């Protein structure tokens, strides 16, 4: 069946901001889909609120809307664009849920939009736990015994049927959000209640536990002619009970006999047919009892998923690309296999290597959070490694993790065994230690239920960690066919082999063109996410435009950078000096790009330089000059720019000595860390002492220097991204933060162009940015952060001589690709040659808002601070700041209420400012409740405010009100450390109730203005292409 020509315009929905459970993999799949559909000659309309994605680059789709992923907004886009079809299976759960909603509210029918890929019924059959169960049973497949509960007493009744422990699974949530395991009656109320809360339809499944069984996933594809193939099998090392997203996984499956595997294969095919996904990729999860051969179906995702991204990278079979072609009518047989170009896509990849995936966690950033791994996903990223054997792949995965701190195991064996038994972020490190200490495989199997095959392999590994690496590093290709056919696509990994007489048989065909190596950013983590991958992809595109071969090195399977189409040669390798040098040895590159992958490549720069490799752009001394505070401080002095008083200390004692000269409040942190790891504000010597005890001087593992900065209170923070060619500087964007300095730049909303800075200040900022860039000798990108203090004026906080987190946002806002321009400069072009416009404004205001994962870390305080905690970002675009801010808030999931009750409690210093906010909210008709102090301050200004008890003052107190759902908006600013405890309760109550909770005055003001703006009705949607067309482009 050929391409459908009865449809012309296709709407694609992205997955929105990066959140736990829905990350960069959907940029990878969405980008592939857009490209394929454009190639096929369709008009593609894309909606995605996440600016840090390649898919939202204006050239990837015909029309691109960076707008909130909400039914009403997407409906507006549909009205405006009148697409023929909606492809909902490439934007994760978000796109599926939106598609369902738009079907249910009749929007799709009204505008004659056809769902392609998966129809409404198939989506509902897979997503509604109850219907899914029924469908499976009808198909003769076994699912865990279960019943539906809409309230806690239903759940209690269920114990009789399913027994204890049981699993709680909310309907329609991502990454198992709100789910969990109930071991005994005492946990029942909390976990079941939470699950019902989390489910948009207030429904949970109470399910028989198969904890400890083996967990397997199969990636299935089906076409319109009902041909079905299995792309890849994935086995979890962690048995059932740990979310697949949090499990260490291996592909292909290792421990099942052919008969057992074929049984899974048969069932996976039966599942996709029963659910009725017409075309595309689906993911089916099984639990297998290896002793009894029992198999139960756990779930199926009727869409591409994190696992299908992993499967694509693990096999070289581009699931999303093929899924898009299938959705527009092709059959598998009609689609050629990219890699062999000789065979069709209607086959099952044969793998002749082993792949290990490792999750990356961030618990250290959420003190107090429940750190046990359960059925509810908590990891923020992942690394993948390919080796010829399991041990090679496992060892490479270990070094791909780039941990900030080496895990330490307790000396006491019984304690160690406890840690091994409870799944946690460092479980495997403890397990390896246990094996090193010779604690038997039987004991460990019995404690962990991990299959003995893996335990044996790991035991062998610890007995001689070098053994897997005997022989020489040999570059092999990932070719989907185990070498049965010649591979045309240059996707490589290194294995260690005994060389033949003719030396190691590398499969790399280097060619004559000069090559440029681009170092990726490794596993996503908080502080280093998709933004950096975005920049690396732009670097690769530019290198190719400039007639070189782009060579990508990265180990993150979720990304566009590790799509073999992105570069001329992709090396799926850990980002360690050793592995990078291994690639350079056969690439002999013209140079290496370290500016775009965040801190990861910067850490390697010196080593690469020593090895005689050319670092393109800003040199290593400039990098060091910017990052070594003891060198950067004097540089600022020379330039006569203000910086907060600071000191660096080599030990705890030293820090305590120096603190008084710097002056409190202090911002304390270890050096060389991204995302403000372990960074805190302390208000007194005791505070500092406490910090030093908590963090120790070993924070960050590698180094021991501690930095002390005077913390500038009540300052406006400003972020600048600029280009420098060594002599000239071009300002890409000046962003004013909404939250004051002290809230990490990655976590605060920012506005471009600045909404409240005068011309002189902007000029001064531009001047100092240029001064710093030149003084550092930057060639490429630089990001400078400033704090503007009420009295003392402009201060330089830091300068990063590399691509920053805001590069994609700025590029989309101004319509000029900063990373690409930087890459041209790094390869020798001058700013003069680039001839960039002096004026980039286009009559629109863009707001970037951060998305925070607090709802997944029950127990952690949701207060913002200098340590970054957001996982993703969204962008709001409008003609005025309040509307853009309102859009950004909506996109970030914090729907500001249009009316209702606002609860205000603020620090004394904030009370005057708070009255301003209260006044406007009052005028907007909000009822205001406040704690006594705040209430009095407000009433004095003539704003009616109902006083209400603090927690200490007994019920009914504020938390009661919030829990009773009587509050629609919370504004709570903390003072020093004092108010944090009471505030903590308030904030967590708000978070669990999903009530927007604003913790800064400036945020509150913006919110009030946004609410007022929203009163003027639905903001109109506008595409990036339209905005960019309006750029004035003055030269």
């Amino acid at each position, binding site marked *: 069946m050929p391409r459908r020509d009865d449809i012309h315009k296709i709407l694609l929905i992205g997955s929105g901001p990066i959140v736990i459970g829905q990350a960069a993999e959907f940029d990878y799949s969405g980008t592939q889909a857009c490209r394929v559909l454009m190639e096929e000659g369709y008009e593609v309309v894309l909606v995605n609120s996440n600016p840090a994605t390649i898919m939202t680059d204006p050239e990837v789709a015909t029309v691109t809307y960076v707008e909130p992923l909400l039914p009403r907004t997407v409906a507006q886009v549909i009205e405006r664009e009148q697409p023929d079809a909606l492809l909902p299976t490439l934007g994760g759960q978000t796109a599926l849920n939106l598609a369902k909603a738009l079907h249910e509210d009749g929007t799709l029918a009204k505008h004659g939009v056809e769902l392609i890929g998966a129809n409404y019924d198939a989506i509902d059959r897979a997503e509604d736990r109850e219907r899914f169960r029924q469908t499976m049973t009808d198909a003769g497949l076994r699912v865990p015994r279960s019943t539906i509960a809409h309230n806690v007493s239903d759940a209690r009744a269920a114990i009789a049927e399913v027994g204890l422990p049981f699993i709680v699974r909310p309907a329609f949530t991502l990454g198992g959000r709100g789910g969990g395991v109930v071991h005994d009656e005492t946990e029942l109320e909390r976990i079941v209640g939470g699950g019902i809360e989390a489910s948009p339809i207030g429904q949970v499944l109470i399910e028989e536990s198969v904890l400890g069984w083996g967990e397997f996933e199969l990636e299935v594809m089906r076409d319109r002619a009902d041909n079905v193939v299995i792309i890849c099998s994935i086995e979890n090392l962690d048995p059932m009970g740990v979310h697949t997203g949090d499990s260490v996984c291996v592909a292909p499956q290792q421990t099942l006999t052919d008969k057992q595997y074929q049984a899974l294969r048969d069932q996976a095919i039966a599942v996709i047919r029963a659910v009725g996904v017409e075309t595309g990729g689906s993911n089916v999860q099984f639990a297998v009892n290896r002793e009894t051969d029992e198999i139960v179906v756990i779930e199926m995702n009727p869409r591409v998923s994190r696992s299908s991204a992993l499967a694509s990278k693990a096999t070289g079979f581009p699931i999303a690309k093929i899924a898009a072609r299938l959705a527009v009518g092709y059959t598998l047989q009609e689609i050629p296999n990219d890699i062999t170009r000789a065979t*069709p896509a209607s086959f099952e990849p*044969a793998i002749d290597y082993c792949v290990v995936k490792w999750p990356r966690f961030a618990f250290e950033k959420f003190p107090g959070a429940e750190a046990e791994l359960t059925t509810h996903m908590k990891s923020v990223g992942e690394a993948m490694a390919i080796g010829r054997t399991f041990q090679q792949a496992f060892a490479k995965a270990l070094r791909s993790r780039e941990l900030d701190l080496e895990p330490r195991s307790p000396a006491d064996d019984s304690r160690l065994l406890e840690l091994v038994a409870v799944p946690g972020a460092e479980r495997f490190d403890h397990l390896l230690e246990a094996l090193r200490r010779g604690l038997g495989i039987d004991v460990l199997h019995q404690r962990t239920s991990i299959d003995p095959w893996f335990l044996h392999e790991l035991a062998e590994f610890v007995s001689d960690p070098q053994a897997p690496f005997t022989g020489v590093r040999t570059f092999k290709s990932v070719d989907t066919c185990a070498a049965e*056919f010649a591979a045309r696509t240059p996707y490589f990994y290194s294995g260690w082999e*005994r060389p033949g007489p003719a030396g190691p048989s590398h499969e790399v065909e280097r060619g004559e063109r000069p090559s440029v190596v681009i170092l990726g950013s490794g596993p996503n983590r908080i502080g280093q996410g998709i933004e950096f991958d975005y920049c690396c992809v732009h670097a690769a595109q530019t290198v190719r435009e400039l007639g070189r071969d782009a060579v990508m090195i990265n180990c993150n399977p979720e990304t566009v950078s590790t799509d073999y189409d992105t570069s001329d040669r992709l090396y799926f390798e850990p980002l360690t000096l050793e592995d990078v040098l291994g690639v350079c040895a056969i690439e002999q590159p013209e140079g290496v790009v370290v500016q775009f992958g965040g801190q990861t490549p910067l850490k390697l720069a010196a080593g690469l330089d020593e090895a005689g490799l050319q670092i393109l752009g800003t040199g290593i001394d400039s990098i060091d000059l910017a990052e070594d505070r003891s060198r950067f401080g004097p540089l600022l002095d020379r330039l006569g720019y203000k910086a907060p008083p600071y000191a660096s200390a080599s030990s705890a004692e030293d820090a305590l000595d120096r603190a008084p000269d710097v002056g409190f409040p202090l911002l304390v942190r270890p050096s060389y860390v991204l995302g403000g790891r372990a960074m805190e504000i302390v208000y007194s010597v005791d505070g500092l002492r406490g910090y030093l005890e908590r963090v120790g001087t070993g924070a960050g593992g590698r180094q021991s220097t501690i930095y002390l900065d005077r913390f500038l209170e009540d300052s406006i923070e400003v972020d600048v991204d600029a280009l420098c060619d060594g002599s000239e500087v071009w300002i890409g964007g000046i962003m004013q933060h909404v939250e004051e300095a002290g809230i990490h730049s990655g976590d605060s909303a920012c506005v471009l162009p600045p909404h409240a800075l005068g011309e002189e200040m902007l000029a001064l900022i531009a001047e100092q940015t240029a001064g710093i860039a030149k003084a550092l000798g930057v060639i490429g990108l630089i990001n400078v952060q400033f704090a503007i203090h009420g009295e003392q004026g402009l201060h330089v906080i830091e300068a990063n001589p590399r691509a920053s987190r805001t590069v994609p946002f700025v590029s989309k806002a101004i319509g000029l690709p900063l990373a690409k321009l930087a890459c041209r400069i790094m390869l020798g072009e001058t700013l003069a040659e680039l001839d960039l416009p002096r004026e980039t404004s286009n009559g629109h205001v863009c707001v970037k808002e951060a998305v925070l994962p607090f709802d997944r870390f029950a127990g952690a305080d949701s207060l913002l601070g200098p340590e970054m905690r957001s996982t993703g970002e969204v962008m709001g675009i409008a003609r005025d700041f309040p509307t853009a801010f309102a859009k950004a808030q909506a996109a970030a999931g914090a729907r500001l209420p249009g009316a209702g009750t606002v609860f205000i409690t603020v620090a004394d210093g904030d009370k005057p400012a708070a009255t301003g906010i209260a006044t406007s909210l009052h005028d907007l008709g909000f009822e205001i409740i406040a704690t006594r102090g705040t209430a009095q301050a407000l009433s004095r200004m003539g704003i009616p405010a109902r006083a209400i008890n603090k927690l200490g003052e007994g019920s009914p107190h504020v938390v009661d009100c919030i829990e009773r759902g009587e509050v629609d908006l919370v504004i709570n600013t903390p003072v020093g450390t004092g108010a944090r405890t009471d505030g903590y309760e308030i904030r967590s109550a708000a978070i669990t109730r999903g009530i927007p909770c604003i913790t800064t005055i400036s945020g509150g003001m913006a919110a009030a203005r946004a609410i007022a703006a929203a009163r003027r009705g639905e903001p109109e949607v506008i595409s990036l292409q339209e905005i960019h067309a309006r750029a004035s482009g003055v030269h």
Partner: protein
Amino acid sequence: MSRSGAYVLLADGTRFDGLSCGADGAAVGEIVFTTSMSGYQEAMSDPSYAGQLIIFTYPQIGNYGVSAEAMESDRVHARAAIMRAGVDREDAGGRGRSERGWLSWLADCGVPGITDLDTRALVRHIRDEGAMKGGVFPEGISPTQAAEMIDAEPSMSGRDLAREVTPDAPVTLEADTDGPRIAMIDTGVKLSIIRNLRERGATVELHPCTAGAQQLLRSDPDAIFLANGPGDPAALDYIVETVRGLVGKKPVYGICLGHQLLCRAVGLETYKLPFGHHGANHPVKDLTTGRTEITSQNHGFAVLAPDGARTIDTDEAVRWETDFGTAELSHINLYDRTVEGLTLKDVQGATVQYHPEAGPGPHDALYLFDRFVDEIKAAA
């Protein structure tokens, strides 16, 4: 455990060094590779591999040990196992179902193996140069000796290996139901084929490959089944003769070698593929339904179109005139578009080149056994 050295030497002189495992001693024959990721024991015990040494492209072999239920015949037929890495654990997979460690079992069976060589490099060499004779040799044997042993080994083309794997006397496997009676020319049948026929109620008679038409017809079976097996179909004219004496008299079905023999019997030719099809992921299109099935494959020879073409360039169920009337192309391989199946239109009979019985491999084509058995019942 330090293991002694061993090496693979190919007829063209190419050499790959590794470590020896399994039984001591050398093995020579035709070296082929299979891309199947599981089912190593099934492969080693598949009579179709007689005379061949198997390179497993999946790098780690032996993960789940060995067990009686995985045997495809009563013994190992492949002459050696060539692996990137071998696993030998009694408690493999820890499911107490594995009865022996894989490498120990190879030793028990007297089959040599080699590990720790760059199997992917070896496979790419064979892919480019074609399957060739070669051997696995302990380091004790000098390359010159080894080369002589390889020369002494007859080439696969024109080789009758059926006689080496066929039973000496007929055996009948009665079914408790009164299903059809099938007389099989046992050129080295896989147990999975017998299992699938018997699961469908058939009584199966296994006859030596030298049995003539008379002997096969003696019990008045409802159908004749031509089994899979090793070697070159062109060297089995005596079986082809027998088959010519059966076509038209009884429904005739065949798998793999059996397919090649039936095709030769109706007048078609066979030829040697460059490196054969050995794996569990080849897409085959059923031209009657238009469906693609993922198939288990294990053959070094294939059937030529009447016009001598090696590949079929249409997805149509083309019809060919044969000595026994019209034959219709029923299946083709979507990898290299070679013939995968044929149906006789004027007399009752059908065959496939691939392995619907799986063992190892996907079950997509099991429906063929229903189709065959139903047709047989209908005819009976």
